């Protein structure tokens, strides 16, 4: 969920990185920045299971392979706060992947990174964290096991907090003393003084036993989805990232009213948070075809962001005033999706795998032998045209990045976006 660089990975487990590389966080052995995805040659013979980006570092998870003792996490980029976990001494930065220590023999199911934090979750629900200490505690240079009775099924990180989801559908927050009080300095210090430093992990307040099915941590805000499908947000709200129609901070989860309430049908919701924005994706629980494009709704919650974009992108020729705004919003959204967030999100929004699978069924002539299929970008580019050809009920619209046009949820998305924009 980083803001300045991105990791992408293809269906066959290759890793591509691009963006700001000044701390070695792209892993190419240099400190250069790249504006288009470059294959990470270090992992050329490995199938990469997962990746995560922090502010200035990256993590890569390799699952058990012959010749290795177990799962391995590789780290590269800035290591000043211990976030690489590769040495007990301070490491300024490394530009090639190195193995994170202290996780030998542990079956890792997921990894997370954000800010200067790193985390890994084992298959028996144990959380390991390293990097910057939470709530003023000292930095950890090696993974530390968080002692708790909870068995975690998901862990996400912010810049100063971690959110955990337990097997029982409970949500817990680690280092949440500043969560939701960022713009009220008096309250921060009061809370900090009160805080018992031995008890950093707390249950998320105000849920009254309601079960949680998904969680997401932004830089300084959080979101969750309850069993009933309600999206709730809390934390820092200055940029409208809580989607509550105001810019007020919240110390406990508040229900968000989504614009396009999906009627009655079964819907799967997912929520993602970034630096000052939130995205909710709702998918109708139905097979993808024939309405390839109509079954995903994206709600972007980030009112304030548009100010950055005003007049900063080339204007479209269309005379329509709204179109201009749409153009910019769409670029913004797509850019965020690809530059600010993880591939998990990209996968969900674009449904790249689903679309690839679908296109394979529809266009079996695209053989596996095509060497380009190892690159995510090219198949996507081809899919764009295929998806567009499939979509016969709407006029083609070309917005945003050329290889993402096939998304074609843009109008829905933009409508939601501009509407939410006006809330604040």
């Amino acid at each position, binding site marked *: 969920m980083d803001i300045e660089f991105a990791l992408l990975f293809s269906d066959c487990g290759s890793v591509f990185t691009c963006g700001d590389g000044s701390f070695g966080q792209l892993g190419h052995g240099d400190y250069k920045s790249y504006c288009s995805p470059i294959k990470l040659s270090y992992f050329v013979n490995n199938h990469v299971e997962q990746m995560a980006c922090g502010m200035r570092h990256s993590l890569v998870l390799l699952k058990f392979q012959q010749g290795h003792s177990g799962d391995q996490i590789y780290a590269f980029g800035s290591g000043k706060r211990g976030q690489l976990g590769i040495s007990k001494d301070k490491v300024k930065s490394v530009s090639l992947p190195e193995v994170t220590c202290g996780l030998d023999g542990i079956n890792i199911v997921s990894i997370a990174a954000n800010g200067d934090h790193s985390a890994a979750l084992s298959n028996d629900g144990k959380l390991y964290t390293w990097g910057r200490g939470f709530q003023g505690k000292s930095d950890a240079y090696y993974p530390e096991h968080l002692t708790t009775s909870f068995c975690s099924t998901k862990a996400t990180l912010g810049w100063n907090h971690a959110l955990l989801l337990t097997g029982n559908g409970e949500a817990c927050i680690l280092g949440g003393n500043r969560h939701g009080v960022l713009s009220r300095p008096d309250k921060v210090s009061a809370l900090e003084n009160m805080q018992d430093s031995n008890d950093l992990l707390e249950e998320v307040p105000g849920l009254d036993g309601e079960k949680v099915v998904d969680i997401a941590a932004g830089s300084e805000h959080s979101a969750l989805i309850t069993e009933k499908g309600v999206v709730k947000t809390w934390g820092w709200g200055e940029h409208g990232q809580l989607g509550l129609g105001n810019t007020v901070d919240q110390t406990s989860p508040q229900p968000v009213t989504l614009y396009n309430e999906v009627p009655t049908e079964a819907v799967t919701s997912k929520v993602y948070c970034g*630096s*000052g924005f939130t995205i909710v994706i709702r998918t109708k629980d139905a097979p993808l075809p024939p309405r390839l494009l109509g079954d995903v709704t994206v709600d972007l919650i980030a009112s*304030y962001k548009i100010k*950055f974009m005003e007049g900063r992108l080339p204007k479209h020729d269309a005379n329509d005033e709204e179109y201009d705004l749409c153009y910019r919003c769409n670029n913004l959204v797509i850019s965020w999706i690809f530059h600010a967030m993880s591939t998990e999100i990209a996968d969900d929004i674009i449904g790249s795998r689903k679309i690839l699978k679908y296109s394979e069924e529809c266009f079996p002539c695209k053989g596996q032998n095509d060497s380009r299929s190892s690159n995510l970008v090219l198949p996507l580019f081809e899919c764009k045209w295929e998806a567009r050809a499939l979509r016969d009920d709407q006029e083609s619209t070309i917005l945003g990045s050329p290889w993402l046009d096939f998304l074609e949820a843009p109008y829905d998305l933009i409508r939601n976006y501009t509407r939410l924009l006006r809330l604040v």
Partner: protein
Amino acid sequence: MSYDDVEIEDMEWNEELKAYTYPCPCGDLFQITKDDLKLGEEIARCPSCSLYITVIYNMEDFLVQSDQTKKGIDPPKQQPVTVA
């Protein structure tokens, strides 16, 4: 209250903004100019939100360069950065 304390060596010089920068959790950048640093200013602000950080640095490191800097030029105003 300061969002964070950041050492100057952890900040990045941004030629376009003519300022030292550090990522802000809103997606923009905390910024402080060399002129600010010479004056002993230790607060780097984000032009897009209310947050600010405290910059930890040695003022003398910046005073040395002062002779080379032309006087009478207004420091550039902080600009929001396109964060996409």
